């Protein structure tokens, strides 16, 4: 992503991040302080409340966010992220409220009762003001945690500064990663200072400091109002090239992407097609693999690209591998029947797992097929998801790969790890531009252990009824070859072009090849 574009999407990401964090912190405060007050009066409540909050705290942030999705019945976006972050903010505030109230001098409490304060008066006039510095310290801890953890809300579909980090990680755009980190750190520090200012204002009852605090808060919130010059450039001018105009005027369409380069590019291309029909397009970026599917069935996104093999294995939980065409036919009918999800069609390429080695390794060990790895003591790397899948178990058993040491890592790092010799074998994605660029050798799979992964466009139950939307996307069907996709991915992953540039290139490529369809893309391997 180029720096100009980073600024272009900055207001909405910053807004998402700020609102999410702010709402979570305020909720944490509103829940924890009353709970802390109750708990400080009852040992029976204090123990369990603190234990619960501590347990929540030990759940890694990303896992807590992910858990909220099924807990909310598959809902993605703001609510699961908000709920997880609010829960996250409870412990420091709750603990400090209990500690703070407990630290009030017992003679002072006795005096307060002795002179005739009611319990409420004592709480409001004596206990809380005296506990305030400790409670505020907890609030400040919570706010720093929450602003940091909010960057993890991208995979559950809430837009935040984390989008820079997740997308940057996948497209190896370290500038974007750093940008996301720096801005969220700056936000955390600024919020911390504003809270400090308010605390000070309350302690010395200074209206001027309150005003300063409000001004600080307004300053932090101000980037939300900023728009950095115009709307996103669209490729709508190309619409004549792709055929008929479709009446999607004024319609809002939401697309989803999983978290890797190809998905980002395809979402942009789908966006161009929809914008050409007049729609306004939102993209929920970087969704977890199953999160994207759940979001589609709930209609929270209208369309996204998935892969036949993924649906086959993880949604239908099938273990057998019929031929490529059969998997496509069966997944399509299954999705419509069971989930009301319409398969618009295949894009034309397959993004399968391919067992890959460097040319040097292939020649040194005389490797041609996966079966040549049998019994060897090499290290194989893949995304963590793969080693949990049935197809790995099947490939391992079919080819006798039991001696391979497995290492899960983010797919962004896999190819370099192979180049460096840190690992010997990887499960490359067959559309990854780095296969060609790094001159990797894909080993044959004579036993057909690895299932086919045809990319196809899935439509939500609502979109399944929407002819106009379908017609806008139909020109993309059977229009992208594996070679085209690999080239587009390579532009981002190797040449460090922006996702948008790659999408523009692919969009032009699709349009120029319109007259000569990609032909025999779907034949059996």
């Amino acid at each position, binding site marked *: 992503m180029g720096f100009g574009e980073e600024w272009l999407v900055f207001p909405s990401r910053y807004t998402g991040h700020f609102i999410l964090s702010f709402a979570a912190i305020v909720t944490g405060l509103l829940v924890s302080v009353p709970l802390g007050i109750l708990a400080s009066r009852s040992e029976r409540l204090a123990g369990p409340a603190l234990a619960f909050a501590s347990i929540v705290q030990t759940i890694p942030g990303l896992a807590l966010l992910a858990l909220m999705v099924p807990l909310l019945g598959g809902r993605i976006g703001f609510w699961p992220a908000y709920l997880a972050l609010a829960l996250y903010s409870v412990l420091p505030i709750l603990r400090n409220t209990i500690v703070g109230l407990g630290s009030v001098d017992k003679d*002072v409490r*006795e*005096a*307060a*009762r*002795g*002179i*005739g*304060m009611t319990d409420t*008066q004592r709480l409001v006039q004596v206990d809380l003001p005296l506990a305030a510095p400790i409670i505020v310290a907890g609030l400040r801890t919570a706010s720093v945690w929450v602003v940091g953890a909010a960057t993890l809300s991208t995979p559950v579909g809430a837009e935040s500064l984390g989008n820079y980090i997740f997308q940057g990680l996948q497209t190896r755009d370290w500038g974007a990663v750093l940008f996301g980190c720096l801005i969220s750190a700056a936000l955390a520090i600024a919020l911390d200072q504003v809270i400090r200012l308010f605390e000070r204002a309350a302690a010395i009852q200074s209206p001027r400091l309150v005003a300063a605090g409000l001004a600080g808060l307004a300053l932090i919130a101000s980037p939300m109002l900023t728009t950095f010059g115009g709307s996103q450039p669209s490729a709508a001018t190309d619409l004549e090239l792709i055929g008929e105009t479709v009446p999607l005027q004024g319609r809002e369409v939401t697309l989803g992407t999983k978290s890797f380069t190809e998905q980002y590019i395809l979402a942009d291309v789908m966006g161009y097609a929809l914008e050409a029909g007049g729609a306004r397009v939102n993209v929920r970026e970087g969704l977890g693999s199953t999160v994207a599917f759940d979001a589609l069935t709930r209609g929270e996104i209208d369309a996204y690209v998935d892969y036949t093999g993924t649906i086959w294995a993880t949604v239908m939980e099938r273990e057998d591998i019929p031929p490529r065409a059969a998997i496509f036919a069966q997944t399509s009918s299954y999705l419509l029947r069971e989930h009301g999800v319409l398969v618009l069609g295949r894009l034309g390429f397959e993004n399968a797992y391919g067992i890959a080695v460097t040319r040097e390794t292939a020649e040194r060990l005389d490797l041609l097929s996966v079966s040549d790895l049998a019994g060897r003591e090499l290290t194989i790397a893949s995304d963590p998801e793969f080693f949990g899948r049935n197809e790995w178990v099947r490939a391992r058993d079919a080819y006798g790969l039991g001696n391979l040491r497995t290492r899960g890592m983010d797919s962004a790092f896999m190819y370099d790890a192979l180049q460096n010799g840190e690992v010997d074998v990887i499960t490359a994605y067959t559309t990854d531009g780095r296969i060609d660029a790094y001159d990797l050798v894909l080993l044959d799979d004579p036993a057909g252990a690895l299932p086919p992964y045809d990319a196809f466009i899935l439509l939500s139950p609502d979109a399944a009824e929407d002819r106009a939307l379908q017609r806008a996307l139909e020109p993309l069907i059977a229009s992208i070859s594996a070679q085209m996709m690999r080239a587009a991915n390579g532009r981002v992953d190797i040449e460090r072009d922006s996702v948008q540039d790659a999408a523009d290139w692919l969009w032009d490529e699709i349009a120029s090849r319109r007259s000569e369809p990609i032909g025999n893309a779907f034949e059996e391997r």
Partner: protein
Amino acid sequence: MPALLSARKLTKRFGDVVAVNDISFELEPGETLALIGASGCGKTTTLKLLNRLIEPDTGEILLAGKRASDVSAPDWRRRIGYVIQSAGLFPHWTVERNVGATAELLGWETARIRDKVTALLDMVGLPADTYAARFPSELSGGQKQRVGLARALAAEPELVLMDEPFSAVDALTKEGLIRDVLRLRDKLGFAAVMVTHDIAEAFEVADKIAVMDAGGIVQIGPAETLIKSPAGDTVEALLDAPRRTAQRVTAAFSEGSG
């Protein structure tokens, strides 16, 4: 004249321990009673029963004819001044707000509170000009105790309860404090119940003294009565130690001057 304060057959248990065992006494307006005895004799519990920081298991308390059980505990406490050993000032409030706290709870007008606070601070030797805006952390121990005393008196109570009010300060400060309390009492005419473990203090301040042991009152009466006809070993022992101290001190003084 009817009694200002009547304590009737008060009993309080904490689990198996009888902290206060069936005690009764009366206090006339303007009169000062000292509750004295060893640690754990029940004197502090008795004081807390009087302003209902602790409610009795049985028995009743009347203040100016009004039954304690007929009003809420906070309302009851606002009518009674309360002084504790460590002063217990609110650290986040100025001296002025501390002193006016009870009056504020009673809903007095701001101007009236201010006048009262100013007058009282003058009376306890802490001129409002200098001290009203200070925070408790800026005061010495004796000054805190004086502010605590002023706070107890600000709402013009007829009864003031004092829990070892002189034991947290040095001897000289204590002398001055005792003088202040006596002066204020003469001027304002409040009755007082004071808990102490120091019989000399009780002799100086109290009109009558109640000697307590194991939750009960062993003997109650003016100092002369206790000295003339002590009712048993507890009272004897209580009088004996200070008497011996006094003899030693007297001997030392006469040696020094002779």
